[in-house]
C-alpha cells in the first residue's frame, strides 16, 4: 500500500440526516398563544373595529355570559343529541351494509352502484326533502346526519372487508370455523382499522352537516346560535360559537383516537 500524506486523509463527508420529524411539544401552544396575543393587541390598539373582529377577550366574555345564563347547555345539548343519535345510527347502519357489500356478491353488485351514486350528494341538499318527510323538528336533522355518516362508513367498511388477509380466512375455514365465526372473529376485527378511519371521516362530515342543518331551521343548537349572532352583528358571540365548534370537533377526534388506541392495541 502506497504511503498517504497525512494532509490527504480526510473524514468521509456526512450526507445523511434530516427527513425525520421529532416532537417539539412547546411549539404548538406557543404559536397558538402568539396568534391570540397579536389578535388581542391589534383589537386593543384599535387596528381592527370590534364589530369586524372582536378581541379574543370579548369573545371569551360572550362565552362566559352564555355559560352564566345557562343557555350554553341548552344549545350544546341540542347539538350533541342530534350529533350522537344521527352519527351513531348512520355508523351502525353503514357498518352493517358495508359488511353485506363486502361479504355477498349480490349486495356488492346490487348496492355498489347505488352507494356510488348517492355518496357524492351533499346531504344538506336533501334537508328540504327531509323536512317534508320528517317534519321541521329533530327528525329531519337526525336524518341528514344519518345519511351523512352512512355512506362514508359503508365505503370504509366494504373496503376494510376486502383488505382482510384471505389466508386468515382460509385458515379459519381449514380449522372448520362456522361461517358466523369466520365473520365475527376474522373478517370484522380485520376490517376494524378501516372502519375506525371511516368513523373519523364520518364524524367530521356529521359536524359540518349538524351546523348547516341547525342554521337552516332550529331554535337551539350551536349552529342556530352562530346564525342568530351573525344576524344581530354580535360578532363576539359569533366567535364564541365558532370556538365552541372547534372544541366539539377536537373532543370527537380525541374520543375516536382513544377508541382506536384501545380497539387496535394489538398493533402496538
Amino acid at each position, binding site marked *: 500500500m502506497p504511503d498517504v500524506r497525512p494532509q490527504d486523509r480526510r473524514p468521509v463527508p456526512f450526507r445523511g440526516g434530516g427527513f425525520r420529524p421529532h416532537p417539539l411539544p412547546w411549539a404548538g401552544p406557543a404559536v397558538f398563544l402568539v396568534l391570540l396575543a397579536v389578535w388581542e393587541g391589534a383589537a386593543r390598539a384599535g387596528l381592527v373595529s370590534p364589530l369586524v373582529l372582536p378581541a379574543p377577550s370579548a369573545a371569551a366574555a360572550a362565552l362566559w355570559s352564555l355559560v352564566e345564563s345557562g343557555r350554553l347547555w341548552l344549545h350544546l345539548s341540542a347539538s350533541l343529541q342530534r350529533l350522537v343519535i344521527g352519527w351513531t345510527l348512520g355508523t351502525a347502519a353503514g357498518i352493517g351494509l358495508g359488511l353485506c357489500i363486502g361479504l355477498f356478491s349480490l349486495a356488492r353488485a346490487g348496492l355498489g352502484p347505488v352507494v356510488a351514486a348517492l355518496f357524492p350528494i351533499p346531504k344538506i341538499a336533501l334537508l328540504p326533502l327531509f323536512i317534508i318527510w320528517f317534519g321541521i323538528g329533530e327528525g329531519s336533522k337526525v336524518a341528514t346526519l344519518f345519511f351523512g355518516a352512512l355512506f362514508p362508513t359503508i365505503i370504509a367498511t366494504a373496503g376494510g372487508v376486502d383488505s382482510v388477509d384471505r389466508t386468515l380466512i*382460509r385458515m379459519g375455514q*381449514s380449522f372448520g370455523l*362456522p361461517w358466523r365465526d369466520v365473520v365475527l372473529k376474522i373478517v370484522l376485527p380485520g376490517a*376494524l382499522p378501516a372502519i375506525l378511519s371511516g368513523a373519523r371521516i364520518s364524524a367530521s362530515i356529521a359536524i359540518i352537516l349538524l351546523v348547516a342543518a341547525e342554521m337552516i331551521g332550529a331554535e337551539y343548537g350551536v349552529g342556530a346560535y352562530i346564525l342568530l349572532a351573525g344576524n344581530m352583528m354580535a360578532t363576539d358571540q359569533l366567535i364564541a360559537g365558532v370556538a365552541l365548534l372547534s372544541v366539539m370537533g377536537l373532543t370527537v377526534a380525541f374520543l375516536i383516537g382513544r377508541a382506536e388506541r384501545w380497539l387496535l392495541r*394489538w398493533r402496538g
Partner: protein
Amino acid sequence: MNLSIEGVSHVYGRTTALDDITLTVESGRVLCLIGPSGCGKSTLLRLIGGLERPSAGSVLQEGAPPPGCLNPLTYVFQDFALLPWRTVAGNVALALEHHRLGRAERAEIIADVLARTKLADFRDAFPRQLSGGMKQRVAIARALAVRPAVMLMDEPLSALDGQTRELLMDDLVSLWERERFTAVYVTHNLAEAVRLGHTIVVLSRRPGRVHATLTIDRPLADRQPGDADLEQHVAHLWDLMRAEAEAADREVLDA
C-alpha cells in the same frame, strides 16, 4: 387414517395446474412434496385438505380419524396465518372455541400444546412481538391442539431465516419422534425434504405430474445435516429437478 389421492387433476381457467396425480399418504409417516416453483404443490395441498375442489379425481379418507380428533386435516401455513389481534393463547383457542369443550378442558389443551412447543412463557404475547420461528411454533401448537389425523404443511419453514429453519427442523423431528404424526409436507428445499420425509414425491413442472417417488428408510432421528447418504439423495433429487427448475425459472407468468 390414510389418505388416498386418486387421479386428481386441477385446471385454472385454461392452465392445467395438476394432471392425474395418484398418491397415498400413509398413517404415521411424513410425505414430502417437492417440485419447481409453480408446479402446483400448494394447489395439491389445498385439494387434499378440502380448501379447493379438484377438477377431476378424488381425495379419499380411508378409515376413521383417531378418537378425540377435532379437525382431521389441519394446515400449517407458510406465512403462519396467525390473527394479529389475538395473543398466542388466543390464537390456539380460535381452533377450539367452536367445538363443544368445557372451559377447563379447553384451557388444559391450550396449556398442553403450548408446553409441547415450548411456548408456555409466551402465552399472552401478541404475534407482532414474536420472531418468525416463534410465530411458526404458535401455528404448530394451534395445529396440534385439534389433534389432527394428518398435518398439511405448506412450506412451513420457507419464511424463516436459515438458522431458525435448522432449529425448527430439529423441533419438528423430535415432535414427530414423540407423536408419530402423519404429514404432507410441501417444500422446495431439498435438504428439508431429505431430513423430514419418509417418502419424497417429486412433481414435474406445470402441469404437475408425479415425476418420481423416493423412499428414505433411515429413521428421522438418525438423520443429520451433512450425512453422506442424505447428500446423495439431495444430489439425485436435484438431478431430477434441475432441467425443470431452470425451465420454470425462465417461464413468463401469464397472470
